[in-house]
């Protein structure tokens, strides 16, 4: 765990999320998660299905209500706010979802999808929404011609770019990327990763990168958290974790991932 530096963007302390299961059985999806994310950093959380990494991402954003613990965004305790007070903060922390086929409303045009968030955060509404949407589309490498298209007319990679444009429209500080490319073909995946990394550098974004793909994490993240059954089994710089894994589970994960 990294030492308390002056001004981390996100400070997560003792986060715990418990789901009520059938027959009163509780599932601890995330247990006692604590970490900091420094500005401009890309912190990766890796784990297999059921490790709790997605629930961790959603708990940080309070899309799932955490059972205990604190999430501070630039000093403000998000977990202490009620839902109304939380709403203005949502624009600073945006999320990119795994499946772009599911995360975009099928009946809305690209224009509507990208401009919809401004109807919620009215102070961000540009004077000419159309022009701003076209600008955002250009920023994610999409031609302006797609502005009137619907998600069904776009490929997976194009949809994910629209989802990124939608998030960027809110001028966020932190992007939580929940397996942002795992639903995409490998060649498209490469392009979307390149886009995300370019954007991080040019806009100074902070990334929380959720992934199961170790090879990919190694290329994008500066620090890695390995999750297993809801707990952090190993944390450290990417180089250290990959070169010198200390935990048994991390080692088995590295050994199992197929090499080219």
């Amino acid at each position, binding site marked *: 765990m990294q030492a308390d530096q002056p001004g981390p963007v996100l400070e997560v302390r003792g986060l715990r999320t418990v789901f009520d299961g059938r027959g009163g059985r509780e599932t601890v999806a995330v247990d006692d998660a604590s970490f900091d994310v420094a500005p401009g950093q890309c912190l990766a959380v890796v784990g297999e299905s059921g490790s709790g990494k997605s629930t961790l991402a959603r708990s940080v954003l309070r899309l799932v209500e955490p059972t205990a613990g604190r999430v501070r965004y630039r000093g403000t305790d998000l977990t202490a706010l009620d839902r109304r007070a939380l709403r203005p903060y*949502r624009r600073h922390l945006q999320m990119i979802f795994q499946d772009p086929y599911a*995360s975009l409303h099928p*009946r809305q045009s690209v224009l509507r999808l990208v401009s919809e968030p401004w109807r919620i955060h009215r102070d961000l509404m540009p004077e000419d929404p159309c022009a701003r949407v076209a600008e955002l589309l250009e920023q994610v490498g999409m031609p302006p011609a797609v502005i009137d298209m619907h998600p069904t007319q776009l490929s997976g990679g194009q949809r994910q770019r629209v989802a990124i444009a939608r998030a960027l429209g809110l001028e966020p500080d932190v992007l939580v990327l929940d397996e942002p490319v795992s639903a995409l073909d490998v060649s*498209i995946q490469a392009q979307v990763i390149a886009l995300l990394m370019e954007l991080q550098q040019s806009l100074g974004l902070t990334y929380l990168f959720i992934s199961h793909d170790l090879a990919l994490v190694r290329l994008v993240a500066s620090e890695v958290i390995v999750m297993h059954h809801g707990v952090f089994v190993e944390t450290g710089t990417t180089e250290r974790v990959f070169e010198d894994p200390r935990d048994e589970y991390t080692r088995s994960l590295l050994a199992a991932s197929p090499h080219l």
Partner: protein
Amino acid sequence: MSSVPAASELEVVPAADPRPTGGRLTVHRLLRSPSALLSASWLAFLVVVAVALPPFVETAANRQDLSLRLLPPFSLDEGFAFVLGADSLGRPELLQLVMGTRSSLLVAVTAVAAAAVVGMALGLVSGYFGGWVDEILMRIADVMHTIPSLLLALAVLYVLQPSVGNLVIVLAVTRVPVYLRTARAEALALRERVFVESSRAVGARDWRIIRTDLAPLVVPTIRTVAMLELASVLLAAAGLSFLGIGLQRPDVDWGMMVADGRAYLASAWWVTVLPGVAIVLTALAANLLSNWLRAAEDPAQAARFVRRPRGGRRAA
């Protein structure tokens, strides 16, 4: 930003696809389905008749002429208005049918529309929020389901004044649970979809999610159900008018015409049969169109609309 890889390098941005999709595909399929096309044409014809003709024929339709009492149909001797004969008071059957079309459609369409809008709104709220709201709404729907709707309508109209307004309200209220259940079931599934979570992540309130995310996706199902309901509401309205607690003269609808003619069934069949045929044809058309619409708009049933190529070469 110059080095951002463009989406178009590998994934070709589709040009306008000449192949029809969505609404255009539905029209495309309609033109190739005889039964659906016939049903749609019949309903469209009725709407035109109901909207365009009544102002011109209202006076002539209600003019009584006892010398023409129970005039047999299919003769042009008394003019085109009497081509379908006359009823027991010598009113031209054709013009009565035209007036009846307007009342029958007005009552059925208004009742269906009102029930659909209210039922869908309640269903969306019930399904999205769940909890005690859902419990209360569903219990009310259950209770309403156990009482036969015709019996309820009968009781209410017996107590209240039988009028067009009351008839519509009674028919609408008794049919609300149908839409409520449908919309609730869809909302239950839709609220778990990722795009709803995406809306929440950008800060949308619950009402906004119901309005902009859920409602547009529930409308097509509700529309299909409404089309099916049109047939049963039409029959229910006809039934109530037949029993004499629906519309009152000088208003007339098909059910009332059937009732009026029943005393003369043996001697003047046309007074009963013609409005009866109108009811049956319209209910049938609404049913056929509803079933067809459900299939045509379901991508999973696309194969049904493909014709096998000639020669019948079987696919392996």
